[in-house]
């Protein structure tokens, strides 16, 4: 599969990356080079193979709903972790009025 300039523009949009013309050209070249290599995967027949999206799901063989139960928690306020004090929560904000996080206005109508 060959990547086109249009693809690069589309994906840059999805990823919210503003690429310069030079970056765009480089990206086109690099992506095609890498994807060319990735195409070798098509040599393999994976028709009846299960994808391995999670690694940890092979670690528990308990039956039924007990499976993975250890990886969930009770509905207790601050049971797993305390909430952050408000001032700490907004401390790293590039733009905050002390109460809210602020961004340039979102216009929807």
């Amino acid at each position, binding site marked *: 599969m060959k990547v086109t300039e249009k693809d690069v523009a589309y994906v840059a949009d999805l990823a919210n990356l503003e690429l310069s013309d030079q970056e765009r050209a480089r990206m086109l070249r690099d992506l095609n080079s890498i994807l060319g290599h990735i195409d070798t995967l098509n040599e393999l027949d994976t028709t009846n193979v299960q994808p391995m999206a999670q690694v940890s799901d092979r670690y*528990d063989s308990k039956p039924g709903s007990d499976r993975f139960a250890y990886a969930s*928690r009770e*509905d207790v*306020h601050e049971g797993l972790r305390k909430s952050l004090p408000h001032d700490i*929560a907004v401390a790293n904000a590039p733009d905050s009025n002390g109460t809210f996080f602020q961004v340039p206005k*979102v216009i929807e109508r």
Partner: protein
Amino acid sequence: MATSPDLSVSARTKYEPVIGLEVHVQLLTVTKIFCSCSTRFGDPPNTNVCPVCLGLPGALPVLNRKAVEYAVLAAMALNCRINETSIFARKNYFYPDLPKGYQISQYDKPLAEYGWIDVPGPKRIGITRLHLEEDAGKSLHEGFPDADQKTAIDLNRSGVPLIEIVSEPEISSPDEAYEYLTRLKEIILYTGVSDCNMEEGSLRCDANVSVRPRGQKEFGTKTEVKNVNSFRFIREALEYEIERQIEVIESGGRITQETRLYNAQEGKTYGMRSKEQAHDYRYFPEPDLLPLVVDEKRRSEIRKLLPELPEARRKRLVADYGITEYDAAVLTASKALADQFEVAAKSATNPKRVANLVQSELAGRLKAKGLSIEQSPISMKGVAQSADLVESGAISSKMLKDLYDLSFERNKDFSVVYEEEGRPQQSRDTSALEKTIDEVIASNPKQVEQYRAGKKTVAVFFVGQVMKASKGQANPQLVNELVAKKLGG
């Protein structure tokens, strides 16, 4: 509600609308779906937050078991099939109130599928799926100092558990959409998993609507209608949008697939000004969470927690108490009310009388004062007490009516008013009554003569006087009998 008066009836009937509804319901868990922050509504902004729901680098989600239980309950109440294994997935998009730049939801393998709701018709509307996901934070566009230049973000809501309920595109009119939503809300309220409050945002609805020539199988192009915060407005928005689409098609245009926002004041939908992103969410399974397993054992445990649902309960009330469907509907307006009614009715001597009193004495008075049944000054317990008093003959029906009037006047429960009035007793004391009748007869010789002269209707006068003398506590039937006897003939 603005619709084009030019759109002729024939144009409208040429097309049929196809509506699908997507409802998001917030679950009433104490904590968020993936972290231990509080879900409480109305707290100061950005105070119920932590690294996880703030989307800080390095934070990881941990699933709230209660959210799963509530989601399964809702799914069961909606007749869905619960999938034993479901998978969380990331829905990737950028928005300032979405801290991680993705929402953890479910995609390929949702928690539940293939449910339904019955609406009046009767018609069965299918539910395609019900799945778990996390809510985003809130964006505020006004109400703070720099509102003209900026948008403010409050992440208290980020991470609150949601269930998304998607209907099949089987809804065929705005009225039907209204019914669907009403039934859905009622059922969810009965399960207790959400308070379904559209004003507070714990129930939200988006509609997908298209039109097609009547009888055609293929769907027309659909638009999505958002930003509607009441069932009434959804109906209006759909009515407007359907008309708009028909107009466009009739005038030779084509429908653009887009999201449209409803403006309640103007009664119109508008296409969004911002460029429509192609909604490429790039879903993939969430690697930070394990598969969700809800096996048969767990499903049976949860099924036991399912209360009797509204439709079934209504049918049973009609059968058990001999009330009308309408009154059954009134009594099942909320699960709490229905529960109160049944507890009261079952503890009364004659349950049917309790139901009857609600129907005959309570309903009319409530309507006159514009009160809902939850606002009734007389509680179900009070109705039951009054029913028992009439049943035992302690008070007469007339006395009950008077006491009910007083309750409504004073805005106090029946038992309170009954005490305040000194526990009036219907008098069945024949000898005392006869004494009273003798006194009345003695003091009204003229009327006695009239009666003896053949004017039998004068008996009513005597009954009235006796009732007055007994302060309404005499049993009217008995008085009638005794007066007739005393007057003779």
